[in-house]
């Protein structure tokens, strides 16, 4: 941890030295520890201390970015000069309006002391509980436990200054037998909120239950998706369509659909960086406060997320969703929520005459982005449901399915929400889903 005072001195020094019309400094610093286990033993155990300084300068409408992780004065001066040189040598960008000005930033705490103070021995004890449980059941455990302290600061010459320190603790595990696998994961701000025994139990039980899977013909099936699989719906829709860039370039599934019903009216998806049920962050990588953005509300397409550059193209204001400059990928909803329903997993199973129960997806990729057609595999626990009960485990299947069309066949939505890790300090929150039909197009051998 650098601490707010040290960060403030660092960024003020750069801003004072800069000759640019506008200057922005982003500091991302942290200490991250990861204990990785496989074959029920620790095989990788690592630590990292790093601090990155990202300087963006503006000359007229020309923008240059340079980064360094060397915090001595000489290196910082060189990095500033690199950014200036880059800006000087390029043509004016008529789409660039300005860096964002200062706005009141929300203040809240999202810091777990147990995470920050975690020792290697404590991490070994945590993963040890899962490994021991696996050994006792004659199966093998693999996975990773991460504990991290992260510090984000953004300042610019227009008066923006924000500093936020947070923590993240995450455990995930795959338990394997000769013929099966089971998965579970959890994350929290504070390590004390992770229940290693519960995670181990969930994955071990799934592994034992999915032994000796039978082959099943591909085809269209009713599916019950655990939240691990539902997360992919949010991420793929975010990737293909929830960004202003995708809208402006005409490749989003939301183009021409704002205000129209595009999925089942029980489906609502929004982004809210300040909701404590997620991984809250008060501002984005430009220092703009995070706004709640309704992406899909009761099945109706409502809007997309903006950073200042893409907002400027439409004379709008940023919604607080910038990624680190130059952010060629564009803005992104890092803290998305899929609204809950009122069903339990047991109720979903009990109401299914014939269908598939899917723990999670693997290696999903968009095939046709404008319809959000995605292909991927099932993994770590797939079962056939018959007459309201789980009948037997099945070998993994490949699906090729439009997520939009699938969300027009919603049968039930789970009432319990699960937080799962995402990108750039973000996390998504989602329930389980039961969908009337899902297209499986292939099968594998295990």
């Amino acid at each position, binding site marked *: 941890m650098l601490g707010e005072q040290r960060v403030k001195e660092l960024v003020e020094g750069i801003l004072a030295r800069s000759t640019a019309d506008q200057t922005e400094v982003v500091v991302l610093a942290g200490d991250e520890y990861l*204990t*990785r*286990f*496989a074959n*029920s*033993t620790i095989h*990788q*155990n*690592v*630590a*990292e*201390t*790093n601090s990155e300084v990202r300087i963006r300068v503006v000359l007229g409408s020309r923008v*240059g*970015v*340079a*980064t360094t*992780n060397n915090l001595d004065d000489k290196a910082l001066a060189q990095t500033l000069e*690199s*950014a200036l*040189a880059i800006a000087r*040598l*390029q*043509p004016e*960008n008529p789409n660039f309006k300005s860096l964002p000005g200062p706005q009141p930033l929300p203040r809240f705490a999202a810091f777990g002391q147990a995470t920050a103070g975690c020792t*290697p021995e404590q991490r070994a004890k945590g*993963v*040890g509980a899962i*490994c021991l449980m696996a050994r006792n059941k004659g199966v093998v455990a*693999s996975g*990773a436990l991460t504990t991290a302290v992260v510090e984000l600061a953004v300042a610019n010459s227009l008066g923006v200054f924000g500093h936020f320190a947070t923590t993240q603790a995450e455990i*995930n595990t*795959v338990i*394997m037998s000769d013929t099966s*696998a089971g998965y579970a994961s959890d994350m929290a701000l504070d390590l004390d909120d992770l229940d290693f025994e519960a995670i181990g139990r969930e994955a071990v039980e799934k592994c034992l239950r999915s032994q000796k899977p039978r082959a099943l013909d591909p085809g269209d099936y009713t599916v019950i998706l655990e939240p691990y699989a539902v997360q992919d719906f949010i991420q793929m829709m975010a990737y293909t369509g929830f960004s202003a860039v995708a809208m402006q*370039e*005409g*490749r989003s*599934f939301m*183009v021409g659909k704002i205000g129209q019903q595009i999925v089942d009216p029980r489906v609502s998806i929004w982004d809210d960086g300040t909701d404590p049920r997620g991984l809250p962050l008060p501002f984005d990588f430009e220092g703009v406060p995070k706004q709640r953005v309704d992406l899909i509300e009761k099945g109706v397409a409502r809007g997309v997320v903006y950073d200042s550059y893409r907002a400027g193209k439409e004379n709008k204001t940023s919604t607080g969703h910038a990624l680190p*400059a*130059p*952010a*060629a990928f564009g803005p992104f909803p890092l803290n998305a929520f899929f609204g809950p329903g009122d069903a339990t997993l047991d109720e979903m199973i009990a109401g299914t005459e014939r269908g598939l129960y899917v723990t999670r997806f*693997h*290696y999903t*990729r968009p*095939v046709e*982005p404008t*319809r959000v*057609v995605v*292909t*991927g*595999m099932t993994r770590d626990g797939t079962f056939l449901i018959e007459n309201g009960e789980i009948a037997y485990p099945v070998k993994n299947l490949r699906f*090729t399915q439009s997520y939009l069309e699938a969300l027009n066949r919603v049968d039930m939505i789970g009432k319990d929400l699960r937080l799962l890790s995402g990108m750039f300090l973000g996390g998504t929150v989602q329930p389980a889903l039961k969908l009337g039909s899902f*297209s499986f*197009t*292939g099968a*594998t*051998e295990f």
Partner: protein
Amino acid sequence: MRTLTDRALNLAQVQGASYADIRIVMRRTQEINVKNGVVEGLSDNESQGFGVRVVVDGAWGFASSAILTPAEVDRVTALAVQIAHASALLKVRDLRLGPPVAHVGLYRTPVEIDPWDVSLEQKLDLLLKADEGMRSTPGVVVAGGSLSFWREKKVFANTEGAYLEQEIIESGGGITATAVDRQKGEVQKRSYPNAFARDQRQEGWEAILAMDLPGHAARIGEEAVALLTAAPCPSGETTLILGATQLSLQVHESCGHPIELDRVFGTEASYAGTSFLTPEKYGSFRYGSDIVNMTADATIPGGLGTFGWDDEGVPAQRVPIVRNGIFCGYLTSRETAQQLREIVGDAAPETSGGAMRADGWNRIPIIRMTNVNLEPGEWEFDDLIADTDDGIYMELNKSWSIDDKRLNFQFGTEIAYEIKGGKMGRLLKNATYTGITPRFWASCDAICNQNHWRVWGTPNCGKGQPGQSAHTGHGTAPARFRNVQVGMIK
């Protein structure tokens, strides 16, 4: 540097390490993105730091820091030792590294024109010309181009006497045209020279000049627009000819990953997955047809998987992977090479094949692809098309997915053409194909020759926790596969 490396290695040994190594890495990258005539992103990035890896009480520990001072070296080394002690709490047995590695030397990527000696104006001028060329075709909504340059200097030293200095230089670039039919809600794109807007090589600015991005821009724009009105790829079983770039990703996913011995031994199970190429298949399993020969070759000039020594100090090697269709080799580390010998005995090499690579100072080395290649066959491309009565030619990847043992795969390509009566026919869009890895490679009945073979770069191969992105190379020439399922989109 010697002062810092000696300090870390001595301290690690004093604190009980039976083995230690340190890597000091300085990486500089430059990224340039142009879109529709405007410079959307231009950044120069530097990262430096060191990582200390130790074996204490038969278990691994690793710690790293961006602060290059003697005091920080002491703190990080002690932390690595503490972490290794914690790892040992769950160990089943002591790890073994096999024979010591004690090479000393220097390696630098040979370049004709250092990319950092080329002015920004020159780089932007090239991209903006290509951008303009793509937008000369009505219907191109987004024209984009990018250049990427990479320089990594690293020092490796270990307690066995190795001291190695390397400098790796890479140059990458490419263009993409996106055409949109707003009424139909359809989007098509074409890229050059490789998928996802760039090919990358261990070469200098000469690699970018050889791409001739402006010279291909108009064609790429025209093809993107033509795809909007092209016929969809039909569904069914047919003969498939894959172009070299698509084949490079096919090799990457269906050969490169399953031969990583850490995956085989389960140490990637919780993230990337495991492998169907288990040790009992070593030396006897039919992976492909008789004409399929594959190698992992870290010595090829220009390949992204080329180096002097890997990040355990093991020299670059050419390792046979598939010989006449039979699976015969893995990508290995020092530790996994010993584990393999315990299972298959003297059939396996005594030492590592040199495939341990780390994504920077803050990551531990893990087994990564070097340049995993499909060796050239005997066919001229025109003869291969003329010899194909009915089939589809697909090129340049658009989507890719494969299961966690690397068996069931499905790929989509940007462009495809019908083949009828030995001739290329009509343009096809939204082409996809699927298969099971060993059945697919067993159906390979023709591979083009050296005239059509080159090494392609994959600069974004993800693996490991915490995540690491590797730069890998794949030498391929177009090849033909029989009875392949195509057209998976409803």
